[in-house]
């Protein structure tokens, strides 16, 4: 078995526990089925491309991106825990290189991200199935954006985990950053209804791009702007991945 596969196996074993699964599944379900339907009374149909989506359909598709982002916290937690509990040094004294370690983390979050996305898509399907418009183009688009998004947010979590040693610091910073990403994005509400400054800030947030691409993939509304968003997402993911890799490579013992 290749070293990266062995490390992915280990990463998944230590990360996937009942608490994590509850967080990954129950939390989005509450959002989709409680918040989604409760806010229907306040929020009319949401225009998206050439379609008019119900709010639950809009929210359920947004929750896929949100869940991918949340699942990438695993990457930061693995690195931070490995450093705190001496496993980073132990792994590095074994038959692995830092490149193996970094790639195994990326593969882990890509797998967890895809599974999370699939899970929410499956659970949310009854909510948005009326507007779904899958095609041979849209499914690869969703998979591409899921993986790119996982790499992007996984890199951010990794960068934070390499810079902080205290558990309080790590938790505060990572929760603040990811809270900003979650709520200052189009995951929960459309940018079109927000005040202009806030709508602008939405587009300084990579989760907005990820959610927009996933929605476009699900509802078949791929436009030039969505393609631009894909390019931005891919470029950002590449830059952050390089930074995370450099920081991980420089970690000393």
């Amino acid at each position, binding site marked *: 078995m290749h070293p990266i596969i*062995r490390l992915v196996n280990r990463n998944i074993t*230590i990360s996937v526990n009942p608490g994590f699964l509850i967080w990954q599944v129950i939390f989005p379900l509450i959002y989709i089925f409680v918040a989604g339907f409760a806010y229907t009374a306040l929020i009319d149909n949401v225009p998206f491309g050439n379609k008019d989506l119900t709010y639950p359909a809009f929210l359920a598709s947004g929750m896929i991106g949100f869940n991918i982002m949340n699942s990438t916290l695993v990457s930061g937690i693995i690195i931070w825990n490995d450093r705190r*509990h*001496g*496993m980073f*040094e132990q792994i590095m004294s074994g*038959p692995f290189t830092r490149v193996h370690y970094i790639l195994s983390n990326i593969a882990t979050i890509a797998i967890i991200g895809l599974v999370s996305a699939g899970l929410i898509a499956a659970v949310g399907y009854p909510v948005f199935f009326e507007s779904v418009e899958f095609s041979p183009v849209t499914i690869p688009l969703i998979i591409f954006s899921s993986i790119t998004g996982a790499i992007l947010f996984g890199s951010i979590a990794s960068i934070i985990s390499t810079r902080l040693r205290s558990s309080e610091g790590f938790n505060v910073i990572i929760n603040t950053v990811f809270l900003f990403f979650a709520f200052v994005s189009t995951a929960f509400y459309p940018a079109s209804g927000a005040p202009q400054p806030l709508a602008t800030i939405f587009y300084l947030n990579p989760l907005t791009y990820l959610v927009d691409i996933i929605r476009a993939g699900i509802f078949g509304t791929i436009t030039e702007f969505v393609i631009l968003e894909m390019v931005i997402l891919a470029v950002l993911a590449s830059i952050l991945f390089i930074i995370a890799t450099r920081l991980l490579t420089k970690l000393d*013992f």
Partner: protein
Amino acid sequence: MSCIEVHSLSKSYSSILAVDTIDLSVESGQVFGFLGPNGAGKSTVIKLLTTLIQPDSGQISVLGVNAIKEPLKIRKKIGVVLQQPSYEPTLSVEKSLEKYGMMWNVDKKTRQIRTEELLESFELTQIRKKKNEDLSIGQRRRVQVAREFMHDMDLLFLDEPTVGLDPSARRKLLDFLKNKVKDTGMTIFYTTHVLTEAEYLCDNIAIINNGKIITVDSPNELKNRFGNEKTIKIHVSEQFIQLPNLLKDIPDCNIEKSDGIIITIHSTNSEIVLMNILKILNQNNIPISDLSAMPTNLEEIFLKVVSDSDASNN
């Protein structure tokens, strides 16, 4: 055949020279003890030999492989138990062993067999289902050491592996290691602060201080070289403050400490010194309740070698 060859190895952190141009050669199939006071450079040397860090200068060859050019090739053949604890908090003891074997690409059947053997050997069977985060420090240390034997290796680095172990667990681990070396012919590079352990386990010992290797030899040779003096302990029946003054003129009688009841003396000529002491005590009607003359142990040699080295540095 040499298992480890080191020439002119140096490593510094900022302005601190942690390892200062050391040379070292470790033969295969032995337990090699690496002793030194805190901050002497032991862990840095282990990190250099296990390729975790790169030297500033010098050459390292481990198992015939150049550590600077092919670190991964070395890491595939060695086992390492580092000084700091390392564990997966959420995994149970048996799952930790099993997953560690998987990480080393050990096949499933072998993993199962070795897991059972190691649980037994390290007395972990009772706690096999317990999570690492719920273990005591000693139990966690046992898991950490046991885990390393899930995979095959030619050379094992153990950096203070008995820290946190009770005397019984410590002795069992030492016997386990002795048997492993005998059965497999592997080499163990062993650091410890417990010198009786080194004396019990090691075929050869190196003492490092201030980043420099002061001496390398077998425990017996070290005793012959540095331990030609004996420690005499006299316990008198009642306190006699003037006791050191009475004995101070005896030739080769080095009084280490005295509280008026117990007096400790070092001498290279212990028989004659002892006769003189008894004579003086008799003349002054000082009754003796206990008396002993012990050969110098490794701990005393260690302290002597390190203090001599500190003195020459100053």
